[in-house]
């Protein structure tokens, strides 16, 4: 199977290049990650992140034939040859397919991704009604792979100011949580032309999310809450 893979080692290369590989796969190689590991057997200089190999850790996010996705859950049967693989767009490349995710996680941390509740803790746990818990479905499943944020032009132009779809999905995850008491502060923190309103609902995030989540809907709900709070 033929691959064209982005190669860049800043210590050696003056600029990035695409390297072609023609690799004989084994019958057990079903997913793109299997093929990349097979390529690494032949050329161990190729660098990429990977861990769980089943779409849970979010390490092997990359740009596959122009579309962000996880290599471990992308079927080889579904990709067109030659498979063009590049690092996630918009983030600084550390080496080959490995990108520097600092900016992404900085935005994630900026929305305070933890429950804030000052009332005394109950003996066992803070309970939720099944209906309240239902609201968190489609939010908590995010694995922070960065496929969505790095597919978002607003995040490309303003990664230092725009929270990005992943961060905003998580922001709504805590705004929607009935056990959290900082709703107002969270909305205050997001009411900003850059932090929230760079989103123009083009839905690239929804298109690429490997977990099938919908950050655009979450962002819409944040805006809806702001409107309710204001009018």
């Amino acid at each position: 199977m033929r691959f064209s893979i982005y190669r860049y080692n800043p210590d050696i290369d003056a600029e990035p290049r695409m390297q072609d590989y023609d690799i004989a796969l084994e019958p057990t190689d079903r997913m793109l990650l299997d093929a990349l590991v097979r390529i690494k057997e032949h050329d161990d200089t190729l660098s990429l992140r990977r861990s769980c190999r089943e779409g849970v850790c979010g390490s092997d996010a990359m740009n596959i034939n122009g579309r962000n996705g996880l290599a471990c859950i992308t079927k080889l049967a579904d990709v067109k040859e030659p498979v063009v693989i590049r690092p996630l767009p918009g983030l600084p490349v550390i080496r080959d397919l490995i990108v520097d995710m600092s900016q992404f996680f900085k935005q994630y941390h900026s929305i305070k991704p933890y429950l804030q509740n000052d009332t005394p803790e109950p003996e066992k746990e803070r309970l939720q009604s099944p209906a309240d818990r239902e609201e968190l479905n489609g939010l908590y499943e995010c694995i922070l792979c960065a496929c969505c944020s790095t597919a978002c032009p607003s995040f490309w132009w303003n990664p230092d100011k725009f929270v990005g779809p992943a961060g905003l999905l998580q922001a709504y995850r805590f705004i929607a949580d009935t056990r959290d008491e900082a709703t107002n502060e969270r909305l205050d923190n997001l009411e900003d032309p850059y932090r929230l309103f760079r989103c123009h609902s083009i839905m690239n995030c929804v298109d690429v999310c490997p977990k099938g989540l919908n950050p655009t809907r979450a962002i819409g709900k944040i805006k809806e809450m702001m409107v309710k709070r204001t009018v």
Partner: protein
Amino acid sequence: MVNRTIVGAHYGLRDWLYQRITAVIMVVYVAGFFVLLCNGPKLDFATWRMMFTPQWMKYATLLFLFSLYLHAWIGVRDIVMDYVKHAGVRLALYAVFVIALLLYAAWSVRILWGI
């Protein structure tokens, strides 16, 4: 001044709402305008001029144009925010656009009531 990323202007919701409301106004006006156009007599200069003679049409058109300018201001500012990184240049461009749109608004009134 140290070069730090500063965010937290605490506005944006109102503009976002205005953009949606003005969009609805424009859709309604354009749809109504086309209905009027299709049901009217043969389109020539006299018909066109007559369409804008009633006062209500002047006010409706003015509402449409003001909506357009407000909508355009928010849209253009969004584009500038994305692509112009220098704050001083950004402010200068905002000033240019605001002045231009205000002039357009004044001009619109002059045209509509000049008929």
